[in-house]
């Protein structure tokens, strides 16, 4: 009795030991015990249903209707909203800007994050020095996007400190966030500053997990720093790099606050991304139907990325 009660909580053993006996009628106690795990996860299931499943069904429903939310009796219009969104040049511009914004951000996040992680992991420096620098390097990540947006607006102002510093090097500054040619690059630059620390932290943890024995062995075989990085370090941290890159693409594609508070999508749609486009359709134009169609398109694109992430995680399990 004692044995079987402990076995209940060992998934591997309960299945094999109970297998031959499972044809026998089960005692109510056993059945009740089978419900225990569901009791533990049921609050989560209820919340996820309320906060994601129901809303996604709602927004999908809205996207096939006209005049939702603002009118009491919306009518079914089929794919008309999708046609409207996909033939809207502003949406296509937003899609292109989003692509530039997320790929540039992710690539530079990775490069900066890896470079800083390698620096913070170097055996050349003492642990205290590295700990102090680590805190400084994590700083950008600890500020909310609203704060980051206004600090950079201050610094990138035409008469701000960035243009002053460039001027001391003889470089002509610009009105970075208000010029169509530089706005997207500037917003991406700010996003890079705010997002690299998460890469850095994860890669630093991964670097610390690379067995030093491997490095020693490679060194004995005469491998230089670059070769050791290429053939020992990189294969070891590759899974983390891929996971982080996909996660970052997803997160960056969802960035709203930064663009909303720096440029609002302007000037001339130069920084319009899919999230600001959808927000404006809904809460500036009160065209919730078009916004819903855009929102569903965004969801589908993100899910395609998420699919790769889940598959990647499965491979690593």
């Amino acid at each position, binding site marked *: 009795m004692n044995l079987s009660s402990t076995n209940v909580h060992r998934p591997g053993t309960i299945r094999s030991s109970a297998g031959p006996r499972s044809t026998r009628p089960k005692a109510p106690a056993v059945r009740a015990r089978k419900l225990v795990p569901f009791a533990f996860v049921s609050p989560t299931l209820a919340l996820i249903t309320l906060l994601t499943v129901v809303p996604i069904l709602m927004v999908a429903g*809205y996207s096939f209707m006209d005049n939702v939310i603002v009118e009491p009796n919306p009518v079914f219009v089929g794919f008309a909203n999708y046609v409207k969104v996909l033939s809207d040049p502003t949406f296509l511009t937003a899609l292109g800007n989003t692509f530039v914004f997320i790929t540039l951000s992710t690539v530079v996040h990775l490069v900066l994050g890896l470079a800083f992680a390698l620096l913070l992991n170097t055996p050349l420096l003492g642990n205290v020095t590295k700990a102090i620098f680590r805190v400084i390097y994590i700083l950008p990540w600890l500020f909310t996007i609203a704060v980051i947006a206004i600090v950079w607006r201050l610094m990138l102002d035409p008469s701000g400190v960035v243009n002053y510093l460039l001027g001391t090097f003889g470089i002509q500054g610009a009105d970075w966030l208000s010029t169509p040619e530089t706005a997207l690059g500037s917003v991406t630059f700010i996003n890079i500053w705010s997002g690299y620390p998460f890469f850095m932290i994860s890669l630093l*943890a991964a670097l610390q997990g690379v067995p030093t024995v491997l490095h020693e062995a490679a060194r004995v075989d005469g491998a230089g720093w670059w070769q050791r990085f290429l053939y020992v370090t990189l294969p070891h941290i590759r899974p983390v790099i891929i996971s982080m890159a996909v996660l970052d693409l997803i997160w960056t594609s969802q960035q709203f606050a930064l663009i909303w508070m720096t440029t609002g999508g302007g000037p001339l749609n130069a920084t319009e991304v899919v999230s600001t486009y959808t*927000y404006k359709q809904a809460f500036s134009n009160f065209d919730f139907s078009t916004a819903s169609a855009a929102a569903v398109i965004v969801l589908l694109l993100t899910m395609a990325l998420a699919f790769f992430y889940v598959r990647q995680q499965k491979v690593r399990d």
Partner: protein
Amino acid sequence: MSNVTLRGRREASIDVSRQPRTAKKTLLKAGAIAALVIGALYAGLPVLWMLSTSFKQNGEVFALPPKLITSGFSLDAYTAILTDPSRLRFFLNSYIVAIAVTVLTLLVAILAAYGFSRYEFPGKRLINIVIVSVQAVPPITLVIPYFGLMVALGLYNTYPGLILTHMVFTLPYAIIMMTAYFNTLPRELDEAAKVDGANVWTALWRVLVPISVPGIVAVGVYTFMISWNEFLFALTLTRTDSMRTVPIGIQLLMGQHSFEWNQMMAMSILGSIPVLLLFLLFQRSFIGGLTSGAVKD
């Protein structure tokens, strides 16, 4: 005799090679420090500039050449924020929402994580995949139905509306991180408690939870941070200043006719202090928990 010469020769050979190697090492070390300092300037200067501007008079903000400490150095901007009841209300709202989100998230996540860590049940894999996927659902997709839903439920422009919707961001992470943490604790612990006559519930709260405090703290800090920083839902699901949170309060400062840069920076500093403090206090367990949970290394 041969022994001595051997040792002598070895020492000699070491001495020959040590000279250039230490020189090279010093050079490398100097290079590493230089690179670290350049990186630190990139990371830290904007923060320093924010701090510096918050102590200036507004008229000095764009004075040339830029100075870190000006003659008008004062705490005026902070006083202006801290004596304005409508702005203090933003802070109160942020604390209420973030603390409630943290407590509720931890409660729900601990239960779910215990279920995932200690039981095998039909549908477990599917539920796991759903939880991982929820993290990827774009907030902009959710905000439209949330708006309809919160109006319908009478939760528009209320604390419960914000608290509930923030949990869509915090819950998946918290469950993944807590499950990873529980998985590191041996099952023998809760089984021993059960042998002593405790039921599952007591085993969880009296045995597992007390020894999981480092993990719970890490998850709690991260949850607080996400909720404190949330922008889109706070923007769309609240209407009156009495319900606005700090990030929206900062945006509202910016929207006013003249730009009070020193006050905006002071508000930014004040709004960042809770997260900065939590991070500095719990840095170690926080980074450990985050990387083990989120990236599953």
